[in-house]
């Protein structure tokens, strides 16, 4: 009897689409899954649904204009993307940037990181079936967005950085409201742990799946929390310090498990570190100018310039080749999401579709960052 049943149901592979309109892909990403039953045999991402060719547009735009395009890559790290371009241009011009600018940039970058991680935490809970997290995450992120709105004039694509400094000085309420947020968030972050991190159902779902070893993480160019969860020390803020990160003390969060739960933990602990960085700086914003004077038309000296920064998702690299004109000859963005996506096939094969959803949630993909 048993043999008849086995013979009647033959195992065979078939392909299905996940996306481009799938809630777990958080954007227009299409995954072509080759599956055998529910076991994944191969994941092939199909990209380009939101490709705007930002690199080609950069070749016709001035350096001030390029800053605005970078908002639209990883829109959850928009301030840090702007900063990356500004730092590259400033280094090329060898501009002296006022200390005030560096400190304000760092504070806002860390607020951006917290805002991005809270949103990630919310939607990640939703992906694995816990809808409450979505409202908790957005509640706390809203406070940061209000701070941004008051100081930068926008909530998401802030455009607060310009080559040479900042668009305008901080709002008089900035310090007060940031401190209010820190006090508020310190009481809320333990709730995150209570609700999700120590939840046994959640942990059973997350632990031991999507394992990435340290060697593979380096070879795939993983960065940010994805790399650090595999024990790979890749924090750009530590290894290639920029802005005011050399003035503060913070820990680089490292986990060695390399699984989905480790990536989750790294992001939660990183929010504590970001809070600590802001606390160290918020009372010590130096007085002074909020910009350094630049020419209206910025021309970079002939040469090649590279700058890397740590966005909420990992290492963003900006590579400018200049021939001495007001436009770059070639501009390349090495985006963290692109490299992090490339390892998805490697860690998802052998798992189930439900595991793929959890794994993708902790890779924290932002599709415009991948497509550029």
């Amino acid at each position, binding site marked *: 009897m048993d043999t008849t049943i086995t013979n009647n149901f033959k195992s065979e592979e078939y392909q299905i689409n996940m996306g481009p309109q799938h809630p777990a892909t958080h954007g227009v990403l299409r995954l072509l899954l080759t599956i055998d039953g529910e076991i994944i045999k191969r994941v092939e991402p199909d*990209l*380009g649904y939101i*490709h705007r*060719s930002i*690199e*080609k547009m950069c070749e*016709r735009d001035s350096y001030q204009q390029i800053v605005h395009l970078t908002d639209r890559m990883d829109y959850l790290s928009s301030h840090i993307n702007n900063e990356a371009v500004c730092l590259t241009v400033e280094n090329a011009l060898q501009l002296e940037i006022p200390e005030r600018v560096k400190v304000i940039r760092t504070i806002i970058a860390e607020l951006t990181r917290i805002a991005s991680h809270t949103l990630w935490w919310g939607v990640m809970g939703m992906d694995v079936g816990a809808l409450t997290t979505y409202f908790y995450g957005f509640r706390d992120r809203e406070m940061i967005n209000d701070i941004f709105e008051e100081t930068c004039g926008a909530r998401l694509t802030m455009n607060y950085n310009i080559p040479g400094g900042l668009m305008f000085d901080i709002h008089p309420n900035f310090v007060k409201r940031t401190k209010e947020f820190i006090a508020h968030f310190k009481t809320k972050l333990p709730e995150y742990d209570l609700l999700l991190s120590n939840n046994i159902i959640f942990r059973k779902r997350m632990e031991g799946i999507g394992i990435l070893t340290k060697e*593979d993480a*380096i*070879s*795939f*160019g993983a960065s940010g929390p994805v790399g650090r969860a595999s024990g*790979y*020390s*890749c924090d750009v803020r530590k*290894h290639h310090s920029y802005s005011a990160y050399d003035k503060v003390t913070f820990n680089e969060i490292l986990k060695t498990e390399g699984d989905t739960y480790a990536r989750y933990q790294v992001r939660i602990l990183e929010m504590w570190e970001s809070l600590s960085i802001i606390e160290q700086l918020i009372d010590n914003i130096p007085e002074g100018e909020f910009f350094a004077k630049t020419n209206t038309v910025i021309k970079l*000296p*002939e*040469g*090649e*310039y*590279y700058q*890397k920064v740590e966005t909420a998702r990992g*290492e963003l*690299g900006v*590579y400018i*080749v200049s021939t001495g004109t007001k436009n770059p000859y*070639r501009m*390349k963005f*090495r985006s963290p999401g*692109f*490299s992090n*996506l*490339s*390892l998805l096939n*490697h860690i998802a094969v052998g798992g189930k579709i439900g595991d793929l959803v959890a794994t993708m949630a902790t890779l924290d993909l932002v599709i415009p960052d991948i*497509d550029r």
Partner: protein
Amino acid sequence: MTNEALQNLISSWIPDPIAIELEFTEEKSQFLNITVQPEQLHQLMTQLKSNPDTNFDYLFCLTGMDWGKELGVVYHLESTTHRHQIVVKVKTEDRENPTLDTVCKIWYTAEFHEREVFDFFGIKFNNHPNLKRLFLTEEWDGFPLRKDYVDEINMVIK
């Protein structure tokens, strides 16, 4: 390792300096730059990764380039143990059928990046496991990031 020490070490790997054209520069860039011939690319890259003194295990950026006359690729490498960095450039003058060797067996991340370069510059990579367009559709005509690419409908020229 300092840039100078790196330069000396890499030069010492080449038995016959005339047979292999290597060019080192540090001008106009914060990194040590090596320009290598397409035929020597794979061998040099393997050595940069596997030699314990260099140990360039992290390919942090792979950029397609159109220098006007030549097409090519720029590799930004870093060692996660020694924390030194280097830039390797490879150029080919063949614009009709530019072909280079893949490095995606050395650094897995290159597989995606090389597909992006193929998509936008039309550079083919030998031994690449899955070389096809990544962002654009298969029927797209031309390679948009080349300097001589013209698209009168979609491109705004200033």
